[in-house]
């Protein structure tokens, strides 16, 4: 048992932090958000650091790093409030493509590693909420391949992505766990239409409509892989939230030690001091469970799924509490668009909704409950 970071992991963290400091100010984020949330340029800069190849095997031009390195990068991107589809393009998509036939991996993974190509998962359907296996989009055989018909929503950076990984049903009813295929769809493919829009947290998403759209099969047995990719996405969400909370608390502490009311700094009032203690509690519980999430990613599916749901229940609560309290502790300035705090708050709020909210995952923990309890249960 060891929770220390290696020197290489610390160097990776420092490299991301240095880039944030030099290249990603709040002013830049704010300007991107005001301009509609296009972030492909930011993604390209992360590619310039080699980060888009983080999770891709060295044999395909990546760095072949693991879950802890991904966590380290996500924490720093969170701390810097970096606006880019990094988790979607560099962590989730490579997980899904790991099961693709060799020629497909050879064709796309090196370009993904280099950041020339952005691939994102397009799985959300209107009626599915957070149920990953609720898939109405249909796949039918056509010639040597397949065509897909259906609609996917809230696709991250959807109108900036080059390809989509689309879960579509090869057989069975909409809610069956089996019969889900994963397909690669090019943005410009015939019958595919994409409508983008800004998101609450200053980025973009899109609706993707598919009408007999040609698609390349990644795997016909995609349900379990989809679960795994969502777990990778959730671990990234947890880590990003830790970075966000860490920085938002630091900003709040600085404000409390500066702002005076009734002739004294806010930091001197016990009611507010106790609230900061509670905020610190949620941060450290959240950080602990973010570590837990990343370290459990390599476990067999039942343990991994349960652990990731447990982590998201903690992080979901932590990010909501820390976000809300830090805004409250600021008073009026906290609710303004010009102040950085509100942007941390909005990002935290949206992260809770990614890959299943707290209530959803609480249900998962409940369903997967065993007689034993604890980290090693």
């Amino acid at each position, binding site marked *: 048992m*060891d*929770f220390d970071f290696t020197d290489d992991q610390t160097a990776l963290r420092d490299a991301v932090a240095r880039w944030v400091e030099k290249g990603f100010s709040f002013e830049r984020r704010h300007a991107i958000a005001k301009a509609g949330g296009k972030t492909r340029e930011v993604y390209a800069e992360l590619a310039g650091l080699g980060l888009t190849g983080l999770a891709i095997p060295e044999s395909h031009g990546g760095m072949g790093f693991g879950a802890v390195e991904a966590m380290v990068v996500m924490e720093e991107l969170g701390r810097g409030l970096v606006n880019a589809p990094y988790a979607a393009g560099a962590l989730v998509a490579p997980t899904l493509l790991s099961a693709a036939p060799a020629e497909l991996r050879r064709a796309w993974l090196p370009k993904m590693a280099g950041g020339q190509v952005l691939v994102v998962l397009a799985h959300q359907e209107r009626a599915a909420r957070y149920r990953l296996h609720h898939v109405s989009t249909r796949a039918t055989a056509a010639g040597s391949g397949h065509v897909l018909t259906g609609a996917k929503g809230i696709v991250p950076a959807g109108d900036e992505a080059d390809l989509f990984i689309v879960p579509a049903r090869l057989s069975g009813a909409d809610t069956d766990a089996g019969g889900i295929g994963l397909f690669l769809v090019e943005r410009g493919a015939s019958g595919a239409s994409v409508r983008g829009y800004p998101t609450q947290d200053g980025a973009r998403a899109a609706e993707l409509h598919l009408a007999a759209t040609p698609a390349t099969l990644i795997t016909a047995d995609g349900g379990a892989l989809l679960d795994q990719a969502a777990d990778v996405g959730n671990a990234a969400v947890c880590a990003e939230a830790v970075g966000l909370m860490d920085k938002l608390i630091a900003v709040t502490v600085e404000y409390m030690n500066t702002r005076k009311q009734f002739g004294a700094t806010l930091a001197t009032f016990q009611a507010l001091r106790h609230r900061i203690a509670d905020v*610190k509690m949620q941060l450290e519980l959240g950080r602990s469970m973010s570590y837990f999430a990343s370290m459990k990613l390599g476990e067999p599916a039942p343990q991994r799924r349960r652990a990731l749901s447990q982590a998201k229940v903690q992080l979901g609560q932590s990010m909501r509490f820390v976000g809300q309290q830090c805004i409250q502790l600021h008073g009026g300035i906290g609710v303004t668009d010009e102040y950085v705090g509100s942007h941390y708050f909005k990002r935290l709020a949206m992260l809770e909704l990614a890959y299943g909210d707290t209530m959803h995952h609480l249900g998962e923990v409940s369903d997967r409950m065993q007689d034993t309890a604890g980290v090693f249960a």
Partner: protein
Amino acid sequence: MDLNFTADELAFRSEIHAWVAANLPKDISHKVHNALHLTRDDMQRWARILGAKGWHGYAWPKQFGGPGWNAVQRHLFEEECARAGSPRIVPFGPVMVAPVIMAFGTPEQQKRHLPGIMSGDVWWSQGYSEPGSGSDLASLKCRAERRGNSYIVNGQKTWTTLGQYGEWIFCLVRTSNEGKPQTGISFLLIDMKSPGITVRPIITMDGAHEVNEVWFDNVEVPAENLVGEENKGWNYAKFLLAHERTGIADVNRTKRELERLKRIAKAEGLYDDGRFRDQIALLEVDVVALEMLVLRVLSAEKSGKASLDVAGLLKIRGSEIQQRYTELLMLAGGPYSTPFIREAMEAGWQGDQALGGLWPGGAAHCVPLGATYFNYRKTTIYGGSNEVQRNIVAQTVLG
């Protein structure tokens, strides 16, 4: 970064597991697993079994006859003991006063007191709180006046846990009124058989006699029983607090109690009730998060690379979770948590049958649940109330 214990640590755990399984008396573990009343004999029997193995002072260095385990090994020992249903080690001797005697006591004091603490033969109590000094402990007034080769002690201590069994008591006493309150306090070891000591029970709302008042009326204490220097006692008390790291979270016992909650929820037909089950799930997440926080502290201690100052957080969270599981246990018992039958807390109580017909299927396991809920209100108050802990945490964050 690796969540798993090393092969050596796992082998250590197996060794402890096997030893506890072979040596923990079944009648005692039965009581612990069912939250029944533990007698003085139960507690001391287990202390002596541990003592004979040299594990009653399981956190002690080798130099004083302890096993010299590191933080992870100590955690694994606590975990195996908790899981097997061993009684909590009464901390006042081996966990609290012994480290102070080791660090600040004279060789004579060490020779005189440490063996009896390790063996489990001598029962120690703690004399800190006073009626006027709770959270503001430094305001304590119990006086010790030097007269020749003795101190004459007058005053009152309170909340003395299991003091009715105490043979020795370590006390913070006022030896000076000069300067700040903290600088006039001394650390005295007092034989509870000394003339002038009176122990009076305090009955808590669960009907239990767990805590006491201890009165000192011109009690003569040999000056050789002063630990360290006069008026430096506050430093030793703080040292003791710093010594207590992860144990305060009590996560290992909490895991066992969570398992008990699941068993009782099943017996009461609540396990498949989604609303109740979700409450257990929420608690389970809290427990895993607390355990992860504890493991982070242990890892930091083991490697010495990063220091993690979260003792306040562990106290707050650990105690809140303890209260939450006692709350859910009582709710699981539902209406059958209502009866107040002290005898139902004793092992082998046959009242369920005696009241036969009233409780078809048996409800005896529900009867202790109300009392435990009431008893555990103490956890957020003792050891520095959670509000004082929040002050400490806030200090680390805000300055």
